């Protein structure tokens, strides 16, 4: 008994039944990893190991190994931090905000997007953690622990401390939200393992599923928990990038001291996050043959979000320029002219091209429904978003108040190495997730199969 709508495109194609959903998604957890997977994890591990070498050298010798100088005291570290946190935002947007808006197309992409969020936030958090120099003392510096100075507490007026709370709350709540979604799906794999006679696997996945049974009462509570977690995560995700932007906006540096930052950063975060979700999902759908679950329609809808958020980001860039002129503060005006025409003009124009012009190509239906163009543009958007943070941070700092302290920033191999380290970490974690955890939320997809699946022809 299947119902098809003539208005909306089907969310699951190929005439799938509830049974097919368990079969298709569980199979890649149960089977032996493919050669393609070994290759992917191999490359990720090479990146991780090279990065780890650079990180260890940096920890041993100190952060003087980075290319920072007295004028540019923040560069790649904070750029990469903001970039990774931004990427993380799409996962929560998909799973929480789209849940509140009852957008059912989120269901087959939310699992992977949330996993991406969690790994991206880990990568992001590594930068401020390493920038503290003595990582092992970081907890004492960043959290209000009683200490030997009487106790001298942390400064709750500082946006950097707000960041500590925002990022750690965001990470842990996202982790819980993601795990809650995984619990029923682990039980699917457990019960399949019992039927196939794999006792160890059954035990492991039973422990992971917390002994899930799926009774109507538990489902009722479960749905209530999911709804409230979504309700909590929605302001949380907006607060996180708002607070990240306050690291800059509450300072008095020209180019940073603007009230537009919070909404502009949040839009940019969702923009880059969706681009990363697309990059990852286009690969995952190919490797794990999920074409019937992650359809062209899903890709198109994500591209539409990219146009919207990309346009908001574009308007924000123009507004910043307008306000710099309209505000008539010479330092502010200089900062913006210098961004576009100064020594970092190439970074500024890379940002403008990648973030403002390239997503506008998605207005063409042919481009936004084409996988190759989507894949290429999704990478271009993330390059652009990296340059956005670099432009905001380095161009504002490199022209200090006294011309004698003007300077340029040159990254060393350790700056680059730590960026590579986070890529290694991110992709290793993502590929491990994709192999051992169900990449699509089976329970949610099953609940829509009857209503939005394509009929068998």
């Amino acid at each position, binding site marked *: 008994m299947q119902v098809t709508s003539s208005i909306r495109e089907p969310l699951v194609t190929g005439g799938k039944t*509830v049974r097919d959903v368990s079969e298709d998604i569980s199979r890649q957890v149960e089977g032996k990893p493919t050669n393609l997977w070994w290759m992917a994890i191999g490359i990720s591990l090479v990146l991780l190991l090279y990065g780890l070498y650079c990180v260890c050298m940096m920890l041993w010798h100190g952060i003087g190994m980075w290319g920072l100088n007295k004028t540019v005291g923040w560069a790649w570290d904070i750029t990469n931090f903001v970039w990774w946190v931004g990427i993380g935002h799409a996962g929560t947007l998909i799973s929480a905000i789209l849940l509140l808006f009852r957008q059912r197309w989120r269901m087959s992409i939310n699992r992977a997007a949330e996993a991406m969020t969690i790994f991206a936030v880990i990568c992001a958090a590594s930068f401020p953690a390493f920038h503290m120099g003595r990582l092992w003392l970081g907890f004492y510096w960043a959290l209000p622990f009683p200490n030997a100075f009487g106790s001298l507490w942390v400064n*709750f*007026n500082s946006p950097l401390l707000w960041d500590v709370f925002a990022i750690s709350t965001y990470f842990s709540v996202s982790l819980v939200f993601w795990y809650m979604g995984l619990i029923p799906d682990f039980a699917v794999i457990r019960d399949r393992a019992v039927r196939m006679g794999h006792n160890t696997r059954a035990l492991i996945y039973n422990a992971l599923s*917390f002994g899930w*049974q799926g009774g109507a*009462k538990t*489902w009722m509570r479960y749905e209530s*928990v999911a709804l409230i977690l979504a309700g909590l995560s929605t302001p949380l995700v907006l607060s996180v990038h708002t607070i990240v932007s306050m690291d800059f906006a509450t300072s008095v540096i020209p180019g940073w001291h603007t009230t537009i930052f919070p909404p502009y950063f949040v839009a940019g975060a969702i923009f880059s996050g969706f681009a990363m979700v697309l990059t990852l999902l286009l690969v995952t759908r190919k490797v794990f043959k999920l074409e019937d679950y992650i359809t062209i329609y899903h890709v198109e809808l994500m591209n539409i979000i990219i146009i919207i958020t990309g346009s908001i980001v574009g308007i924000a860039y123009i507004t910043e320029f307008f306000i710099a002129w309209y505000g008539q503060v010479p330092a502010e005006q200089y900062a913006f002219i210098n961004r576009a025409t100064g020594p970092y003009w190439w970074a500024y124009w890379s940002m403008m091209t990648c973030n403002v012009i390239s997503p506008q190509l998605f207005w063409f239906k042919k481009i936004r429904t084409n996988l190759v163009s989507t894949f290429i543009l999704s990478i271009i958007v993330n390059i652009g978003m990296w340059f956005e943070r670099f432009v905001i941070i380095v161009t504002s700092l490199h022209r200090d108040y006294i011309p004698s302290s003007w300077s340029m920033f040159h990254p060393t191999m350790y700056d680059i190495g730590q960026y590579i380290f986070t890529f290694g970490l991110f992709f290793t974690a993502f590929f491990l997730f994709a192999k051992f955890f169900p990449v699509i939320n089976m329970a949610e997809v099953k609940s829509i199969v009857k209503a939005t699946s394509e009929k068998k022809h």
Partner: protein
Amino acid sequence: MESNKNFVVGIFDDEDVLIHAVENVREKGLRIHEVYSPFPVHGLDEALGYKRTRLPIASFLFGLTGTTLALFTQTWMLGYDWPMDIGGKNHASLPPFIPVTFEFTVLLSAFGMVITFLIVSNMKPYSWPRQFDLRSTDDKHVMAVDLAENGMSKDEIGRLLKQNGASEVNEKNF
């Protein structure tokens, strides 16, 4: 867990058939032990006569605890225990305390609720659930009826379930 319990287990293929069946058999006076589904079925909890969960209230109370705790801690630390002069501003003023207060509210609210959920649902990593039918996580809806709770015989219950659209009726002893 209780041993030697006898259950009649009805297997349903379709969630709409299941909801009607639940309503009908409950009208006939059958007490249902629980219905196990591979995905949340909307309206099933009403059909089974379950009261709405009070988890939202728990979550709210945990959140309130977080708000109070964070506001109190920050004010006490910076306003009373070690007042610091930061840019000549007030030792303890509300606006800069809001971000941390908000984050802590969300943190406690989310974790408190999820932990409460795990406790009330009796979910532990080391407990193996009582499984009436392994297909209940795959594609079947499984209605378990406890013989001890009902006056009817196995056959009567079986017939009733079949009449209401069960595709299979089995017995299960624990």
